[in-house]
């Protein structure tokens, strides 16, 4: 399948730079944020620190989820990545190109769909939008036309290509915005809340598409979302930011594993009345099919053995004891709490 360009087209060859030199066996970095900070001056008051010293990088072909509560600095980070917001300090490199110093080359590496924005012209047709955005980024009509057809067909918009985007559903409009961001086939795609306001089916379509872009076409995708199940399913890595600071940046499995040992599920062959078991304080108990299950944090082996001893003393039949894989949502809350 397609690999990000190294020698031509919109994503062009890397500049000679010893810092980003490609070493044998090491996957080149698609993007690299170094000590990135942004403080917004707001009148006479103190500056608002939106992002503080974030360093983050990823090799090509990864989907990186940038998570955080509202106001955490996700959108500012995304916008600094594509050069729409000037950092107060720090550096952004896209495919080796410094966004501040090599802007024309750096922006050729990236396509972006930004949150809360139309991103495309609603008064123009889907086809006109793709022609416009392709030329805006330096392509000719001859280069754009087959690519636009490919994108619109892939996204099921081809039949309605001549209609104005303003008449489309929210999902269709978002598809056109994604197609416009991809018209130059950039190796890096930045998606700020790509499924915001979409119905379940369209959100799934967009999700499947993002997965294919990364895993079959080798694109690097950075996305922000509040839908943590969506992020867990899609992302290779998760970076959590809070109050402008990077709290964690790990592969999804490593992040989940970090919190795995604390939570256990104990399944029993008979019902359990939580009221009669005060020693289960802090655990959730569910009854199902004549049995029951206890779920909660167990900090160490001693605590686990204590619990099992209590259950044995009650003559409750034990079926299984398992560590529970926490959901990303649980991990997210935990990371913010530890923040």
């Amino acid at each position: 399948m397609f690999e990000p360009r190294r020698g031509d087209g919109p994503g062009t060859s890397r500049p000679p730079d010893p810092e980003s030199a490609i070493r044998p066996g090491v996957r080149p970095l698609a993007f690299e944020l170094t000590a990135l900070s942004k403080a917004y001056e707001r009148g006479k008051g103190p500056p608002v620190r939106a992002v503080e010293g974030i360093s983050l990088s990823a090799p090509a072909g990864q989907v990186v989820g940038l998570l955080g509560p509202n106001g955490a600095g996700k959108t500012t980070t995304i916008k600094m990545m594509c050069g729409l917001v000037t950092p107060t300090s720090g550096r952004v490199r896209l495919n080796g190109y410094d966004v501040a110093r090599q802007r024309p080359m750096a922006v050729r590496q990236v396509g972006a769909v930004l949150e809360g924005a139309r991103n495309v012209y609603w008064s123009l047709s889907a086809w006109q939008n793709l022609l416009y955005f392709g030329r805006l980024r330096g392509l000719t009509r001859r280069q754009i036309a087959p690519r636009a057809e490919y994108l619109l067909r892939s996204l099921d918009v081809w039949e309605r290509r001549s209609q104005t985007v303003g008449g489309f559903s929210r999902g269709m409009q978002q598809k056109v915005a994604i197609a416009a961001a991809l018209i130059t086939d950039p190796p890096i795609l930045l998606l700020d809340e790509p499924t915001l306001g979409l119905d379940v089916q369209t959100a799934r379509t967009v999700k499947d598409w993002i997965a294919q872009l990364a895993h079959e076409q080798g694109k690097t995708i950075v996305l922000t979302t509040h839908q943590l199940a969506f992020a867990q399913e899609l992302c290779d890595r998760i970076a959590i930011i809070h109050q402008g600071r990077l709290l964690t940046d790990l592969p999804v499995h490593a992040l989940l594993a970090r919190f795995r040992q604390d939570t256990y599920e104990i399944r029993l062959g008979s019902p359990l009345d939580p009221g009669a078991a005060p020693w289960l304080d802090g655990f959730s108990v569910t009854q199902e099919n004549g049995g029951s299950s206890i779920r909660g944090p167990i900090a160490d082996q001693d605590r686990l053995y204590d619990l099992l001893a209590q259950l044995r003393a009650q003559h409750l039949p034990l079926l299984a004891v398992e560590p529970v894989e926490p959901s990303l949502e649980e991990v997210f809350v935990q990371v913010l709490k530890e923040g």
Partner: protein
Amino acid sequence: MATTTTMPSRRSPAIEQGAGRRDPYAVSATRAVLNETQKGLWLLWGHRAVVLPEIITFVAFYPFLQFIIGNGRIERSLVTSTLLPFLTIPILYLAILKLVGDLLEEVNSGTFEQMHLSPFSPASLLVGRLLALLLEGVLIAAVIGVGMTWALGVGIPLRPAGLLPAALTLIDIAAFALLIGGLALALPQIGGIAHLVSGLIFLLNGAFIPLAWYPGWLQTLANVLPTTLGIAVTRRVVLDGQPLAAVWGDGTLPWLIGYTILLSALGWLVFMRNDRRAMQQGKLG
């Protein structure tokens, strides 16, 4: 509409065609600028239901204005001196007010941010956008010019020498619109300012009543406003039949050229500066 989308596992066509060859920067930059013009024309066509009444309003406005000034009748002597300045009014209004309106709408809709993901300078892209607005304005001006000279029996001779000052006047308008567009990125109250400035130019450039009717200090003020100087030179060349050498010799044309260069540089600098500031403040979108 429920759909299942799968992306065909094949190479994307644009990449194969684009591989190995890229146009020189100047060529692709020019294409990007003209792309803005084309988009502007597409948008105009898309909004034709609004553009048509605009044309009718402008065309009807001039005889109505002359009817009022002429106390119930249209004075031919006034038409001769005011028609030429009036032709700049639709061009100026559309360039300034539509550009500001479009810019603010684009900032809100996020397409202004998308414009900044282009490898080309946003100011040069905006020039492309201005070209479309100038074309619309020139079209309306042509309809008014032809219509009025035919209906009122007043002739504006077509002298090729008049193209130079006319072109400089158009550049003045574009530069001034770029300046106001740059201010729009920094000043929330720009809508009011743009209307005020456009109204001032309309009153003082000779479209309303001849410039000579105003007191001296007001004429001096009028001469620093865009279009006044260009109109004065165009009038001398087109209506009075003076050769370009005459307006060059007395310093009027060099002054107009200098003014145009200065205004263009100022418009460019203000736009670029405020655009950079908007990026620093995170206000591009």
